């Protein structure tokens, strides 16, 4: 695992890119092929990949990463309002600004470890959330959320052409970022994010982060100043979250404070743990599963359930609908909770661990057969 050659990195990247870019094709049979959902996969994928660099490698559990999603979103929308509808400056600023905020939040929170660190990040998350509704309303536009208007200056765009009649849409040098082009843009960003994460995992820097998670005490007496390592990991993950936040604004140019609510931070924790914390692919798997199931379960309503249980006698059909109803639609989080509990109890290492176990079992039987053959 550790000493993967350069070639392996290249192969990994090629396979990964192929899988991501062909999502519209292979997700079609399970009904997940529409840009909205695909974009969600990619955006939350970036969020989770980044989060995993902090939580997965160093073990520091942050409940505040939605802050950076929020900062990224607001920054991108402001860039759309003031500068240009081009997404490149918007995303660059999102990443930069969320990085700056991450330095501040991380610098304070990382003075403590374990549960105290988590509480500090949670406190920051609530603080930013409340600020967005109060003091910062001139920037965040409070409860309405920050939106584009026809009166926005868009200085850079105005240099080239006059304002159109309606609201402009986000674009990349003329390509509109809606529908599939939006998805492909997010997908490329996801591939870049994954590449960076792969580099971190395979670097001495990544190894040291894992060592900090394993035994920070030892690290200090081994000659490492652990604080800057932790802060770097925190800022990297914050910038990934900022990119994800920016992309949310790219695909839908408005920003609201609810993106900064602590539940949004909690969601990424769930995704990472469900897939497999500290593994390269686990968080992505977690994102795909949660977002896909959310999409399915939350769209089921009473009428759908009645058709689903149509084959049953009426009295049984009624009771089945009553039983299942709390788990779908608005109540889909109940289902998520059950899935999460099952995975954590039976596979503490996440779904990736499940795959690993199956692979081990498979290779073990293979080895035994080989031994048998050798003995004969």
């Amino acid at each position, binding site marked *: 695992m*550790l000493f993967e050659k350069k070639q392996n990195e290249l192969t990994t990247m090629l396979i990964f890119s192929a899988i991501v870019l062909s999502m519209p094709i292979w997700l079609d049979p399970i009904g997940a092929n529409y840009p909205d959902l695909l974009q969600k996969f990619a955006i939350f994928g970036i969020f989770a990949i980044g989060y995993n660099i902090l939580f997965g490698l160093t073990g520091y559990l942050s409940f505040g990463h939605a802050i950076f999603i929020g900062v990224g979103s607001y920054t991108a929308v402001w860039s759309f309002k003031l500068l240009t509808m081009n997404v490149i400056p918007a995303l660059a600023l999102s990443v930069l600004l969320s990085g700056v905020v991450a330095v501040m939040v991380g610098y304070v929170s990382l003075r403590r470890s374990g549960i105290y660190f988590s509480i500090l990040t949670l406190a920051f998350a609530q603080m930013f959330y409340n600020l967005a509704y109060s003091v910062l309303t001139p920037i965040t536009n409070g409860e309405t959320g920050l939106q584009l208007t026809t009166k926005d200056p868009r200085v850079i765009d105005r240099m080239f052409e006059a304002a159109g009649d309606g609201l402009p849409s986000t674009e990349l040098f003329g390509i509109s970022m809606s529908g599939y082009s939006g998805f492909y843009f997010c997908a490329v960003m996801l591939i870049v994010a994954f590449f*960076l994460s792969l580099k971190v995992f395979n*670097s*001495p*820097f990544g*190894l040291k982060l894992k060592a900090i998670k394993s035994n920070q005490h030892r690290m200090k*007496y*081994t*000659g490492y100043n652990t604080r800057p390592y932790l802060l*770097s990991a925190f800022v990297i993950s914050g910038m990934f979250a900022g990119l994800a936040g920016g992309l949310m604004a790219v695909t839908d140019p408005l920003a609201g404070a609810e993106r900064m609510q602590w539940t949004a931070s909690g969601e990424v924790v769930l995704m990472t743990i469900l897939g497999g914390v500290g593994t390269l692919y686990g968080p992505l798997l977690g994102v795909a599963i949660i977002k896909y199931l959310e999409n399915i379960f939350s769209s089921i309503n009473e009428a759908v359930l009645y058709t689903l249980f149509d084959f049953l006698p009426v009295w049984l059909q009624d009771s089945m609908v009553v039983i299942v109803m709390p788990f779908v639609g608005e109540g889909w989080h109940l289902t998520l909770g059950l899935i999460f509990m099952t995975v954590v109890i039976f596979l503490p290492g996440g779904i990736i661990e499940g795959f690993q176990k199956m692979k081990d079992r498979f290779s073990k039987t293979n080895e035994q057969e080989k031994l048998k053959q050798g003995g004969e």
Partner: protein
Amino acid sequence: MSETVLKIHNVNKTFHGLKALNNVNLEIEKGKVHAIIGPNGAGKSTLLNVIIGLLESDTGEVLFNGENVLGKEPHEINQMGLARVFQTPEIFPELSLLENVMVPALAKHEGSFKFKFLRSLASEKSIKEDAISVLSSIGMSDKLHNLAGSMSRGDKRRLELAMCLVQHPKLLLLDEPTAGMARHDTNKTIDLLKKIKEGGMTKIIIEHDMHVVFSVADKISVLARGAIIATGTPEEIKGNPIVQEAYLGGSHE
């Protein structure tokens, strides 16, 4: 006249009115294995903890190659060339043996902080070779990719020793390297300590087991009730009446 690597001067440490270290003065010569022995509660571990910066002493100074280490951060003291093996094995249980040794090797090579995430670990060939050669010197080169946490206690302690050795420290502190080990395990560690003695590295060993002390030490200091009561060669210490008094008569007070 041989060179002094570590000079402990007038060190005092009090815990809630209890004098743990009482005016300790000690000089450690370069290239020697210096053992510190003494009954339980004599202040041996306190002394080590003061040296590596885990505890702050009330007075005095600890000069390492002429530089005061008191008040410095642990990582700074390590970067000066001072490594320590703890009483309970402090390793990275979730990492492989090779990784366990590579991390300290990288610390020696890169310093206390380096943000180099685009460089692949696989390209750190010389560091990997270094780590493997140290692991093979302790007889673990065949399990490079095993998880450190799955090893026996004795192996964990030897791995921790390897993690210190790979840094080629100027001074190595060993806190009871054989505590809690079975006899054959202890002998294995003694052999290892003898083997690394030839390298000429200066070492301080704190140890209960007199068998270990007399097998490896060049010089012995005896600590009793926070004070050094004798320092000398193993033969001198064996025949010293004050030492016998401290060990045998300590409980009569």
